[in-house]
């Protein structure tokens, strides 16, 4: 027990971990640098649109996560 780590134990778990990391990457540097422009999209600044895309992507990933957790019957 002494040197072990908690890591995903299934393919779906690893995919979920990668999705979580990708979400955090999407809202931070260097990705945020790519949308750092004065452009407007649908009347809103690109940074604002991107921020809300990341925010709603979090909901989508957690919905998928709920499906996996409930399908596999584990926490």
């Amino acid at each position, binding site marked *: 027990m002494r040197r072990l*780590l908690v890591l995903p134990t299934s393919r779906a778990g690893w995919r979920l971990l990668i999705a979580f990391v990708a979400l955090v990457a999407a809202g931070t540097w260097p990705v945020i640098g790519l949308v750092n422009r004065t452009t407007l999209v649908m*009347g809103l*600044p690109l940074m604002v649109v991107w921020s809300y895309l990341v925010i*709603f992507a*979090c909901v989508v990933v957690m919905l998928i996560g709920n499906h996996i957790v409930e399908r596999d019957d584990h926490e």
Partner: protein
Amino acid sequence: MSSPWPLLITLTYVAVAMVIGLRARAGRSMNSLEEWGVAGRSMGPVTLYLLIAAGSVSAYTFMGAPGWAYSKGVAVFYVAIYLAYLALVAWYFGPKVWQFGEQFGHVTQASAIADRYQSPTLGALAALVMAIGSVAYAVLQTIGSAYILFVMSGGVIPIWLGVFLVLGCIAVYLYASGQRAIGRTNAFQGVLMLIVAWAVGLWAVQSATGGLSFAGVFERIQADHGEFLTLPGAGGDMSFSFWTTSIIVSMFSFMPPVWTQWMSASSARTIRRSATWLPTYYVVILPMVVVGFIGIFSLPELARADTVALEYAMQHLPVVLVGLLGAGTLAASMSSSEPFIHSISLSLSKDVLQPVLKLSDGVTGKLARLLILPVMFLVVAPLAIAEPGSLVMILLVGLGFASQVLPAFIGMFFWPRASRLGVMAGIVAGFLVTVVFTTLWPHPLGIHAGFWGLMINLPIFIAVSLITPATNAEVVERFFRISAPRGLSYIGQQIEQVKTPTSR
């Protein structure tokens, strides 16, 4: 302000919040920590969603966020992003924390830490230092509440009276109904804030551009003040590194009230369901931020940026909306301060006074309720009335510390080998670095002080853990049956299965 309506609407909100808070008790005895502290672990997904959402959306959304938009621009959206990431944190850790509470009887964050590391001293240390940040946060929110009453009454209710009015109101329903009052009032406040933010935002856009589309506002900003639409913002101080490290540090600041909120859920599944939809609530920030952007060209000479929404409302919006904005801002500050006051009392009684004075659970439960009174009226009220200039600094240091407790959680959720001394060494080293890089040499190289703290904290935590005795194996196994129900692994290789019944 000559019209009585804004004050009447704001006071009506206070009265409704009090009635809701008092009725939340519904005849239950509130003398046990389980009931007063975590609402008997009974909250459903909708209440929990609004409890966490309203608790995280403080007066900052109605005053600070428009002020940031007014003075810096889109840099303000780092808040919306980290709040969404906090939902990811709640989704993963919340159900496990709930199971710890349900199976081991924890009602506070510090009691979980004390149990995992078999160290009441570490639990008490965590409770005391977290209390510093929590007090500073509650004081800031109380100042915001009193300021709103001062403005809405046209100066008739002075700041000191506003402080006592707001704290007195919270004290009554918090003493009577505990976490149930926080749940019900936050649900009401959460809905009110959402309606008020969008009503004020859309009305402001209509008055500024003649239409309801935000495009008119941003096209004007793009043409005349493009620097507000990108980082590092108009102030030039929100670099990519500060944006990124601020988000990461905020994400890993496991504040005690959030922990208590997770433990108040009716099941682990309830937390996951609430956390999943939590980011949708943060659309509440957008319209208020747009009011801040309108202020850039409508109120160019404003002395205090964080008054931009109120100033704009008083000059351009009908009195009913001004009153609703007052009620919404008051709701935001009250819904954020009451969980912190509750959690300070709960943790001081459970994690500090109970082990020191060897109190029974029954006495500790009664003491937790009574402690809100000295916390509010001997600590929060004097500080809020004095408005010490260093308060924001205390808050920054406090929040910086909150992230330094991260090793305690790594040892609870990911790494069984983490030891008590490793956690203590990491926390102390990280805290000192955070204090120095907040006060003496603020945020070197544009990197958040808390992030510097973590860069020192984590290696020390690992090194000291590896050379000091681990926690009793039975205790570690008890925790990791919940943290790792499918077993523990070396990277890519599953080597140990721990069977445990799942709890939903």
